[in-house]
């Protein structure tokens, strides 16, 4: 029986709440299920003390979670939109990420910040951003961005158990996606990318919702005789450069795709690493696919004009293989 991305996130939370009494959920409206229904029913099942609604106080709830994590809880905090992680950033960057280090290893912050990113259907400039690259620039944070329901399930469970602060980025366009959870699936490792589709002519490196677009693009170019390997990074810190390198040493051509604007995006980091560490393996310029350099506009025609999609990846693959 297939389940949606939302249902499998919920299942992961439900299981971890059951397994470990230290796990607590908090966030705006989480007891009512949250804005997207991810936590629906969990307050009823696990009690209002373990699934707690909060005021609209992103800064304080991030701090609350951090302080609680220092003292034996494993909080899972929901920030409703990644756009509002801006309000919690002081805590996440200056406290959560640095606490272990500043204390010389005395303390740890085992917490997960679940949030949701990306553009879909006119959510507009303040509810559509993809800001993951900020967080890969912060030593001490782990950044996870699952691309499918099954991935989301496994990576969320792993994140909760990890012991370091994790920013767990869901994507609103993936929420309704369905997949069947295989029985006895081993949980993925944090820091291990996955080859979502094998190929030999070009490597498409991507994550989150763009994995779907990359797979579509790979299908399309296959019809043109091009074999694209698609790598789903899964975690953005740590970056699994081994898996990337193995692929690039086979294909020698690279396309990097994400929904965030290219300028200063995660794709820049990957391209830079390749241009540094695998320079001699590259047979073609590295092409990046990303959002055009503008805030996300409201009207569908405008939104489409800035967002990257399957067609952009197809074009980039063709260019890389020209």
């Amino acid at each position, binding site marked *: 029986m297939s389940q949606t991305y939302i249902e499998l996130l919920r299942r992961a939370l439900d299981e971890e709440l059951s397994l470990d009494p230290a796990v607590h959920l908090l966030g705006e409206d989480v007891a009512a299920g949250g804005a997207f229904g991810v936590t629906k029913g969990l307050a009823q099942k696990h009690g209002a003390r373990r699934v707690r609604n909060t005021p609209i106080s*992103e800064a304080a709830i991030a701090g609350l979670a951090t302080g609680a994590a220092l003292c034996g809880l494993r909080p899972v905090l929901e920030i409703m939109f990644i756009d509002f992680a801006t309000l919690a950033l002081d805590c996440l960057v200056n406290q959560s990420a640095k606490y272990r280090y500043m204390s010389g290893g005395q303390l740890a912050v085992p917490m997960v910040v679940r949030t949701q990113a990306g553009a879909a*259907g006119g959510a*507009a400039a303040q509810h559509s951003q993809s800001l993951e690259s900020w967080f890969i620039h912060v030593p001490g944070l782990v950044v996870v961005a699952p691309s499918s329901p099954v991935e989301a399930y496994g990576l969320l469970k792993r994140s909760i158990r990890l012991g370091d602060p994790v920013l767990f980025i869901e994507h609103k366009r993936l929420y309704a996606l369905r997949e069947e959870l295989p029985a006895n699936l081993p949980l993925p490792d944090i820091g291990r990318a996955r080859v979502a589709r094998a190929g030999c002519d070009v490597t498409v490196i991507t994550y989150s919702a763009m994995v779907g677009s990359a797979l579509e693009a790979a299908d399309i170019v296959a019809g043109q005789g091009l074999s694209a390997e698609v790598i789903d990074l899964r975690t953005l810190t740590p970056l699994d450069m081994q898996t990337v390198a193995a692929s690039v040493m086979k294909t020698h051509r690279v396309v990097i795709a994400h929904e965030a*604007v290219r300028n200063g995006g995660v794709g820049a980091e990957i391209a830079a690493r390749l241009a540094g560490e695998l320079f001699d393996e590259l047979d073609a310029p590295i092409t990046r696919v990303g959002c055009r*350099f503008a805030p996300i506009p*409201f*009207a569908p025609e*405008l939104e489409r*004009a800035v967002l990257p999609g399957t067609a952009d990846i197809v074009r980039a693959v063709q260019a890389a293989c020209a």
Partner: protein
Amino acid sequence: MRAVIDTGDPGLEEWKRLFGQLWRIRAFEGQVQTLAAAGEVPGFAHLSTGQEAVAVGVCAHLGREDALFTSHRGHGHVLAKGSDARAMLAEIIGRSTGLCQGHGGSMHLVDAPNGVLGATGVVGGNLPLAAGAAWAAQARGKAAISVVFFGDGATGAGIFHETVNLSVLWQLPVLFVCENNGYAEFTSREEHSTVGSVRAFADPYGMAAATVDGNDLPAVFEAAREATARVRSGAGPYLLECMTHRMAGHYVGDAQHYRSREELAAVTAKCPIERMKRRLLGLAVAREELDAIGEAAIREMAQAVADARAGAPADPRMALCHVYGAPALQANPGAGE
């Protein structure tokens, strides 16, 4: 459009006009609801249905030169300030003829010539902007004031308290209007705070403040008259808390499982339009005249939707415009495009 009214009872004709304003907002939001349900409104649509008297009662005291800032639930405020319903609707359905050429949308209405300096989707994010506009007026020696509408939920955000402190300290001409509708999304005020009345937050600062029944148009009108007069006089900021009720869900599509039938019925019974209607009937205005006012508003908004729909869709060639203003930067400095 209309003169700033700042003393006493405005007279029966004005009450009727304001009654019409209530209806215009109600009808406007009705159209947005229909459009949203039909999938014609991209993104999230938050209706102000039930809260019309706050918008109308406060905006009656504002001129075009006064700055207005609002939140995600701002259609009513913008309309009451006198913006064009057609341009608003065109924006809300994403047309190039919209107030913001389709760049903004329902949560980001701006109508600068009318002093509507912006709606924001970040809860509380509009508060310091309004104080900043007030600071600019103060610094430039302008008589204009700044008004910001926000929900009770926004008082949970630190920015509210920071802004109040600064506004009192600098004696800024800003009016804070809190629409206390007892909810933030699906969570009731009791779960958000032990502080029932937002007015209490003014006390530590000694900020002038009042709480008023936000469903009672004359009460809001009178309270806002006092508040705006005081702010205009240079006496510093003012917090006006309007107790009101959301008659609709948090957004169009919200099934409101968290509210009981009884609660919803009680809210409907407090409808500010019905209440004002009873008031005007009591002043011997003919029922037919009042009905006609409502019907005119409904017709106006139906026509506004038709006009908005006739506008050209947003122009994809404009998608990279307005990112920067400086000519050297307009070539779009990001990622080589």
